[in-house]
């Protein structure tokens, strides 16, 4: 049975052009960028080319880009790195209740280490209020970390406004842009961010690589100690193959961005239309007017998410919900909890669909057709 993949917010397939580039790199360019011989220079050239691509993509200087092993490492470097580098100016951190665990868990760890963290609430639409950030700011606030686009509901956050608010405050502003990097043209200057995280495998690049934009003159405590690669901000031999792939993925993205957006939009509209035509009852979680087109989180009343997801997978449709615990069972989404409170049925009946460049509108019709009998069956079972 052919499967339909609608979980691109989890990861994306590697774009064909990226694959070609990586094949070529794998075959020829294996030098260690730190080596001073011809092979080393060859490796370094790849990394520097990629750095140029990233820097231009987000309107940042070349030297501000630090390659990491991915979004999680970039977030950890941003949060621990800045908290420990600037703790003499205060120990207060502001974040939101709907961040990815790669932000929330570092913040929780910092709390254990004596920092004070404010977790801002969101409204029913999944948006953080700029006034709430303003109200939470203190003289000893050293870091504000707020995601650009939420990975579960696709809602965009007012990063630019928060950036402007923080203009005349000492606090460093970090944004986890893992989900927005593949959709929006980001400009770190106009966003007013000091740190920005992005990841390759969400934009049709390989896994195992991401970057942290770190504003010039900003200091971070090193998290990995060793050969002082990446201007000492991230030790460890550069993952040249993946970095080259990331480079290519960004180039393709820049070229295809608008086309992709239109495609995602069409897929989303088609899916919603097909669901309606099947007579399926559903509601959409999150702000309809401030969202990326490639993620949509839908609540299906009278279903139960574990059974629903399993059924969909058995029917050949790959989607997701919340996050799975290490024993495979699904924990209620902390994002929906923040929006609706602990008891809302939407916590256990919502599914995330995230679209990709290879999806077709016909697939959306098939998905709706497959959902229909499952919902009918679950109505009988779920009590």
């Amino acid at each position: 049975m052919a499967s339909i993949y609608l979980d691109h917010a989890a990861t994306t397939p590697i774009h064909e052009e990226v694959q070609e580039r990586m094949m070529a790199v794998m075959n020829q360019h294996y030098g260690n960028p730190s080596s001073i011989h011809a092979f080393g220079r060859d490796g370094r050239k790849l990394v520097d080319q990629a750095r140029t691509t990233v820097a231009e993509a987000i309107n940042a200087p070349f030297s501000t880009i630090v390659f990491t092993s991915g979004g999680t490492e970039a977030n950890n470097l941003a949060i621990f790195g800045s908290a420990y580098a600037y703790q003499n100016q205060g120990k207060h951190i502001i974040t939101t209740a709907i961040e990815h665990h790669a932000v929330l868990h570092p913040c929780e760890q910092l709390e254990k280490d004596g920092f004070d963290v404010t977790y801002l609430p969101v409204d029913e639409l999944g948006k953080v209020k700029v006034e709430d950030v303003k109200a939470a700011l203190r003289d000893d606030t050293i870091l504000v970390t707020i995601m650009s686009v939420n990975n579960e509901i696709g809602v965009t956050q007012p990063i630019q406004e928060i950036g402007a608010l923080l203009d005349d405050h000492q606090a460093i502003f970090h944004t986890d842009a893992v989900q927005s990097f593949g959709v929006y043209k980001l400009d770190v200057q106009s966003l007013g961010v000091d740190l920005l995280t992005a990841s390759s495998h969400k934009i049709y690049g390989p896994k195992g690589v991401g970057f942290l934009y770190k504003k010039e003159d900003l200091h971070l405590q090193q998290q990995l100690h060793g050969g002082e690669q990446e201007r000492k901000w991230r030790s460890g031999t550069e993952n040249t193959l993946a970095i080259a792939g990331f480079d290519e993925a960004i180039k393709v993205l820049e070229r295809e961005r608008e086309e992709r957006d239109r495609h995602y939009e069409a897929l989303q509209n088609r899916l919603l239309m097909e669901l309606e035509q099947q007579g399926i009852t559903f509601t959409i979680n999150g702000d309809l007017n401030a969202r990326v087109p490639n993620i949509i989180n839908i609540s299906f009343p009278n279903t139960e998410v574990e059974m629903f997801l399993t059924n969909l997978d058995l029917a050949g449709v790959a989607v997701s919900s919340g996050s799975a615990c290490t024993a495979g069972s699904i924990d209620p989404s902390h994002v929906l909890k923040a929006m609706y409170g602990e008891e809302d049925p939407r916590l256990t009946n919502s599914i995330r669909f995230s679209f990709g460049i290879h999806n077709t509108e016909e697939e959306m019709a098939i998905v709706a057709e497959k959902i229909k009998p499952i919902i009918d069956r679950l109505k009988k079972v779920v009590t």
Partner: protein
Amino acid sequence: MSDNANTRVVVGMSGGVDSSVTALLLKQQGYDVVGIFMKNWDDTDEFGVCTATEDYEDVARVCHQLDIPYYSVNFESKYWDKVFQYFLDEYQSGRTPNPDVMCNKEIKFKAFLDHAVGLGADYLATGHYARVRERDGQVEMLRGIDNNKDQTYFLNQISQDILPKIMFPLGELTKQEVRDIAKENDLATATKKDSTGICFIGERNFKEFLSEYLPAQPGEMQTLSGEVKGQHDGLMYYTIGQRQGLGIGGAGDPWFVVGKNLKDNVLYVGQGFHHNALYSDALLAVEVNWLVEQDLSQPFSCTAKFRYRQQDSPVTVYPNEDGTVYVKFDQPERAITPGQAVVFYDGDVCLGGGTIEEAYRHEEALAHLG
């Protein structure tokens, strides 16, 4: 495509060798097999490590070997309400609960069966050592052929209606054969140790575990004639017929728990394995569940088990109008324990069972047994 390929069987997989082989056998028979791991207990330790993770990893490894899909389902809150709360309540009433029986009744063969049906399953399979067979249009549950492993005792409370939806592929095998099959097929769980004890307690100290949930009330240990022999740590820590942990020295035969007085918080002790107070000749069973259509208008003879891995004893069952049964033993039985199950058999067929409410001798209730 064969019929089996169109027949979906959901297998409850625990990460142990029994359920692994269950899935393997069904896969070999060509069924559309789906593995499901049940997470019934949140046992995250002080380092934040959830021990269900390891078992789930084993499920994943085996399912990769078998090339079948696998998923997890969370029944933690249901398990807490239906099994754990019962477990605590029974201990609090001075009885000895059987959480495995309750888990089969409420979780594995109710909530989990519903889940399987929700997944479009035609059958639910588990790695229990029991058999189901159809006879005269009725589906019966039989003992597993490995007498030492037979698990019908724990299955006595499942509903007769669901038997047509159940598969127990291991019922025809011995434990040794199951292990051999696992080894021959190089299953990742082939050499895994069998889990022991009550699932949510695991390898932990039972007393410590229970004391986290129920306040222990130490009291006196007395003989039935009132002679104080020492202190007990709390009645819930002792079960009828137990020898270990009494700490009574002195001459003569070893000491045993022969009864409990919940009202006065007294633990009765007596000397000798065969102490007279431990023996009864009848019991009253409640919550009786029949797995076979049974004529309850008159008494009937059959055999019964009063605890797991015990030989059957011949009994006569006297059905009461309220659905309970009075069970008379041909021979006196030692250490009949309220809260445990009594399970009835006709040869290999499991007729059903109930919960032991009270034991009797010469038609008098033995109050000291709980």
